[in-house]
């Protein structure tokens, strides 16, 4: 099951676009690129909001080709625009019901389960125009899901939100992605892409300059570029075995990591470790304040062109980690595939959700 998109637009007064991609479905496809690179234009083309010539096929359904053009409301896509676009005169429930009204497959109870999923139960009867920005974005996403689309199109849904609201919604989206919803997620935040994208498209001037698994695209980005800096791994659902004063210990297959998190023992958390936060050492005892010193085997190393850095891929008790160190350090530690090292990371540098 794939998504095939071939869209071409090249006219004086239109946004340029020139795309031909076959993308996996059931995953989150990130679209990253500078302002004006055509990200919104692409989403509008896929959704049918803009009429761009080409073919769009989502799984078995042909949304457009040379002969047919399914209008936006007949495509099983739902788009969350950068501005939430709620119906201001309706309540939260009313907005979700609006979407349910067009969804013939909706089962009874869907409304309540969506309200619950997005933490909207306490706001259910509040008018949309009295909600704060973050709440509005949440309703917009809830509403899009109520349409049970084959593809969820998200155009920078987290921009303009404050840190807290953004973090909350990121977690909602991460849950969504894990549930197998196909979504196309536009964002020029490398951080958000690092957390969400399974497959990443990089756009520039209306064309896709890079397409591949998110990990690969991150790894191949220059280490000082925004994308490169956010390279790292997300380790889902590790059980918390201990928690003292907010310093949690998580453990999985012998991999033991300490980090700041409120989660009590017995629960589990997802954690993210950036390559820039991992250093390597030859000995396990280092007289350092760094709390995590994890034995690992070097799987691979690669150096970047025109850059003083080397990327090291590690296997820590079966879990993959990345470390980015300087070429100089790499020589000093004689890093080579198969070598045995200790990966170090500060407890303070690990984020958890």
């Amino acid at each position, binding site marked *: 099951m794939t998504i095939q998109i071939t869209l071409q637009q090249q006219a004086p007064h239109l946004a340029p676009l020139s795309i031909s991609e076959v993308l996996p479905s059931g995953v989150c496809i990130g679209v990253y690129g500078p302002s004006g690179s055509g990200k919104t234009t692409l989403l509008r083309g896929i959704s049918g*909001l803009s009429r761009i010539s080409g073919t769009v096929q989502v799984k078995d359904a042909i949304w457009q080709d040379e002969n047919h053009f399914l209008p936006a*409301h007949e495509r099983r896509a739902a788009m969350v625009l950068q501005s939430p676009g709620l119906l201001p005169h309706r309540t939260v429930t009313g907005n979700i019901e609006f979407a349910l009204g067009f969804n013939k497959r909706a089962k009874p109870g869907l409304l309540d389960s969506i309200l619950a999923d997005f933490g909207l139960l306490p706001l259910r009867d509040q008018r*949309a125009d009295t909600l704060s920005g973050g709440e*509005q974005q949440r309703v917009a996403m809830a509403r899009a899901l109520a349409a049970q689309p084959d593809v969820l199109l998200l155009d920078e849904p987290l921009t303009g939100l404050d840190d807290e609201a953004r973090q909350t919604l990121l977690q909602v989206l991460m849950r969504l992605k894990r549930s197998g919803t196909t979504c196309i997620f536009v964002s020029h935040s490398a951080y958000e892409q690092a957390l969400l994208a399974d497959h990443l498209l990089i756009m520039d001037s209306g064309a896709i300059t890079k397409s591949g698994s998110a990990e690969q695209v991150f790894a191949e980005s220059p280490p000082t570029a925004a994308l490169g800096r956010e390279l790292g791994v997300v380790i889902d659902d590790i059980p918390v075995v201990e928690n003292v004063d907010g310093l949690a210990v998580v453990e999985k297959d012998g991999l033991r990591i300490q980090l700041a998190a409120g989660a009590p023992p017995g629960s589990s958390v997802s954690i993210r470790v950036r390559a820039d936060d991992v250093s390597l050492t030859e000995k396990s005892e280092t007289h350092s304040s760094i709390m995590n010193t994890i034995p690992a085997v070097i799987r691979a190393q690669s150096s970047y062109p025109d850059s003083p850095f080397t990327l090291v891929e590690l296997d820590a008790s079966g879990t993959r980690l990345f470390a980015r160190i300087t070429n100089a350090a790499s020589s000093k530690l004689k890093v080579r595939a198969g070598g045995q090292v200790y990966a170090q990371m500060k407890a303070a540098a690990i984020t958890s959700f």
Partner: protein
Amino acid sequence: MSVEDLQALWLTLKLATSTTFILLVIGLPLSWWLVRSQSVAATVVNVLIALPLVLPPTVIGFYLLIAMGPTGPLGALTSSTGLAPLAFSFPGLVFGSVIYSLPFVIQPLQAGFASVPQSVLDASNTLGAGSKSLLLRVAIPLSQRAVVVASVLGFAHTVGEFGVVLMIGGNIPGETRVASVQIYDHVEALDYASAHQLSLVLVIFSLVVLTAVYRVWGRSVFTQPRHSSA
């Protein structure tokens, strides 16, 4: 006030109400189409709707009368479909008033619809709302105030209309003699007292309606909301 004055007022109310109703029924989808269409046809329609403005109403009435006459296209239509002729009848008045007041309804509606945020329309569109749903469930609820202003302008303009109505209505008491014609008759007959009286009734009625409408909804159509909500 004489029985005839009251009758005329009642007729005016009936005419203005029916006309406003029909104006909305036609004007809402038409304005919606005009706002959304980029076609040449939309420009043509926009121009045609505005055309009645440049001719004196009496002259428009005159041409409508010719069209409604047995030899005119409208007359041919009504007689071939077995309908009663439009001239000198209440339906004819309504027809003429609709033609004549259409620009005053179309204009605020277009302005109102155009100010519905594109993001709301686009989002609703991808959720499954087609053009009709967008009009009924998004554009109209979000342009409530424009709809009110359009109704008021259409209503008021129909109340004050006179040239067209006099010409195609035939000034028949209880049937086509509306208040504006009645006032005109009073003035022509030098019956100033009755003219003043009836004018005053109309003006006060309008004052009340307009004030209420502008106070409650109207002004905000033109004034920016303080918060660009949703």
